[in-house]
């Protein structure tokens, strides 16, 4: 008996050993992708994986406006006798390709060198020589700009000269590159960003950036789901994407009043890489949503099955009329329809990726800058602001700013389904219940600078019921901005106004202001 028990224990232990490996990290697909009919769904997934890869093997899709990180280099020595080569000596940070890097020289900055960095798995793009512009070694991807990040095998720096060293590739180059050929190694920020994201962000925001990491369910408000490409606190127009600076600011300062903490002590290169990775993750998510949206109308499982049925009926009629040669079967009709989808997909992908590219291109973003400087914070300005507040804000934020306006008890209509939510109150675009900010607490999630409050009022908050108020206060743009400053001045004052009343604050300045504005209780 004893032996048997021991044996069972040993076997149980052995069985748990393979289970002790960390699970493979994968991107999850959108629920709507899973709702597509199977063949179309897998075509979408295939395209998505081809363009963005997986967490472990991410693809630096050069079309997307992401700074993946580039090291420029030049081949300095190749084994002369060999007819092919895995490895050769290179020099980084050189002037590189004289024809193409003119723009970089304008910055007057030396090209960065990888130093001790691990370059394994990064892509190499040839800029001059026989391999330039070609796809001979980029894994035969669909087009020249697409790159699997699986190229460099290792990089070992020379001890005495940090710029030179031995570079080995995973693929064989036949024939070997020539001395003087220039290249770029792309993607170190993406892979560094992924590591940092895994360490700092993933447990809340999820591997796919879907805001569904393991700690997410304990948080209120929930961590952001990046996939719709909507970010709440940005300096740009509501319809724009945030700038790199906006994302950095949130990561550095955190979001007071939420579980998003400050990551102020990240080094500059860490911060840069995380921002690039988050952008890339958001682009991947939105790309998927955009592809699926184009196909969902025709290829959602139930709709598709119905379409097949009716097409089959039509086809059988046509066959009997003699206008169709072959007798159609369910299978053949399915194949026909799916073939159409597959034929359309490259065009859809092309189009949607361009939309995405344009959206994230910095030149297409407009940063909100007030036309007039902040109005001095006087009692008169605040009184004007108070009037605007009662007219425009009190419905949600409440007459006293406690976030208890009557809208909190009303039933909101879901924008997507056009149906009323089952519960009263406000909801954001992610379907989460959301409360109007309690302005008496003096906690400003998107930042407490005047410009932050101005932008929140002017452009609203993306993804939430907080609407933009630009142009609502006056037809003249400058006067409108001045009115907005009045409102901002009043909002800053709200925490002190309620306190002054309840605590009997003797500060005469506050007392006078409260008297000159309509009663708040």
């Amino acid at each position, binding site marked *: 008996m004893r032996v048997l028990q021991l044996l069972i224990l040993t076997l149980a232990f052995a069985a748990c050993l393979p289970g002790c490996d960390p699970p493979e990290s994968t991107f999850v697909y959108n629920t709507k992708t899973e709702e597509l009919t199977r063949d179309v769904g897998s075509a979408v997934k295939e395209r998505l994986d081809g363009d963005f890869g997986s967490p472990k093997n991410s693809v630096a899709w050069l079309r997307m406006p992401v700074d993946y990180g580039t090291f420029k280099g030049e081949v300095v020595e190749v084994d002369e006798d060999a007819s092919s080569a895995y490895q050769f000596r290179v020099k980084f940070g050189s002037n590189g390709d004289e024809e193409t890097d003119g723009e970089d020289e304008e910055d007057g900055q030396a090209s960065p060198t990888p130093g001790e960095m691990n370059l394994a798995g990064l892509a190499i793009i040839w800029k001059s020589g026989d391999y330039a512009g070609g796809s001979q070694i980029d894994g035969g991807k669909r087009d020249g700009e697409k790159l699997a990040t699986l190229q460099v095998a290792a990089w070992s720096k020379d001890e005495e000269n940090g710029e030179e060293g031995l570079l080995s590739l995973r693929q064989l180059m036949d024939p070997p590159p020539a001395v003087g050929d220039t290249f770029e190694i792309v993607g170190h920020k993406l892979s560094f960003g992924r590591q940092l994201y895994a360490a700092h962000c993933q447990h809340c925001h999820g591997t796919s950036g879907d805001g569904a990491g393991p700690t997410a369910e*304990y948080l209120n408000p929930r961590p952001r789901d990046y996939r719709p490409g909507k970010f709440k606190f940005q300096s740009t127009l509501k319809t724009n994407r945030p700038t790199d600076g906006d994302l950095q600011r949130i990561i550095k300062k955190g979001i007071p009043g939420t*579980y998003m903490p400050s990551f*102020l*002590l990240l080094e500059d290169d860490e911060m840069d890489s995380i921002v690039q990775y988050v952008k890339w993750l958001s682009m991947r998510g939105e790309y998927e949503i955009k592809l699926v949206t184009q196909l969902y109308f025709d290829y959602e499982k139930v709709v598709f099955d119905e379409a097949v049925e009716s097409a089959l009926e039509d086809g059988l009629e046509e066959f009997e009329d003699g206008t169709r040669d072959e007798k159609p079967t369910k299978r053949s009709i399915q194949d026909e329809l799916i073939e159409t989808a597959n034929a359309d997909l490259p065009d859809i992908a092309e189009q949607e990726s361009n939309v995405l590219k344009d959206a994230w291109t910095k030149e297409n973003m407009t940063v*909100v*800058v007030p036309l007039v400087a*902040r109005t001095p914070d006087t009692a008169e300005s605040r009184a004007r602001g108070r009037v605007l507040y009662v007219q425009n804000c009190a419905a949600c934020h409440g007459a006293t700013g406690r976030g208890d306006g009557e809208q909190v008890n009303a039933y909101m209509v879901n924008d997507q389904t056009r149906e009323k939510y089952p519960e009263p109150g406000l909801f954001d675009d992610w379907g989460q219940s959301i409360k109007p900010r309690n302005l008496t607490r*003096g906690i400003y999630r998107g930042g407490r*600078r005047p410009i932050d409050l101005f932008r929140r009022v002017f452009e609203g908050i993306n993804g939430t019921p907080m609407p933009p108020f630009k142009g609502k206060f006056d037809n003249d743009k400058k006067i409108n901005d001045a009115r907005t400053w009045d409102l901002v001045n009043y909002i800053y004052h709200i925490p002190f106004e309620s*306190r002054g009343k309840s605590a009997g604050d003797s500060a005469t300045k506050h007392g006078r202001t409260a008297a000159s504005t309509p009663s708040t209780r």
Partner: protein
Amino acid sequence: MRYFWAAFFMFWPIVAIVIFTISPAMNWWFPGAGDPDSLTKGQSMTPLGVDIDNLFYLILIITSVVFVLTHIALGYVLFRGARDEGKKALFSHGSHALEVMWTIVPTGILIFISLYQLDVWRKFRVMSSFPEAAVEAPVAEVTARQFEWRIRYPAPGKKLQLKPQPDDLYTVNDLHVPTNRPVMIQLRSEDVQHSFFAPQLRVKQDALPGQVIPVWFEVTQAGHYQLTCAELCGWGHYKMKARIVAEPQTQFGKYLHDLRNEQNDDGVQDKKSGDADDE
């Protein structure tokens, strides 16, 4: 095997002495002790911290000497017993004088330690003993929350109030203090229990929700120091990594001035103090 137990008890004092000796070089000592490039090199960067270190060394020396001596004595007795085989052991009902001695001597040592440390304790914890200059004008209010340190400074030239003021200045995870003068912070917690821990300054104080706890220290060397949370406060405890920046008074004044400019940024005036995202 005869001498096993004698060797066993002789082994530990040797291990202890070896560990004491190599600790600083192995970086098992005070922060920065094993690193010649570090700012602190294992030294406390506050005068009170030096006193605390001295207390630590005193107790370490007393306990090490006692530990080593008792083990050597024990080992010697066991060695004698093993060597002198066949020799009859001495039977005794105990010695009254010896028992009194080994009660009185440790008691005396403990009373000495407890009285000797009172002065450091008073300076560190008793508010009436805090340096007056520090108490009069606390530099900042530090509020711990899950999972960061939120900091509130009074506007330059003003005093920190218990309640937030319209012109207060705010930062997060970045506490600046002037060097070479005692400074006091008001420590609070917004949610659960945290602990304000600056190892290089030898400052550690729990933050309790609902309480405002004054903490003072004087940094003698300008530089960046670690600030961490030393109380397991939730799943994100490890994220509460912040810094204390000690800088000369003039630089500290300039810091607050710049902070005020940044916080008053309206996106129009004073463009250069604005952030990079506005370009």
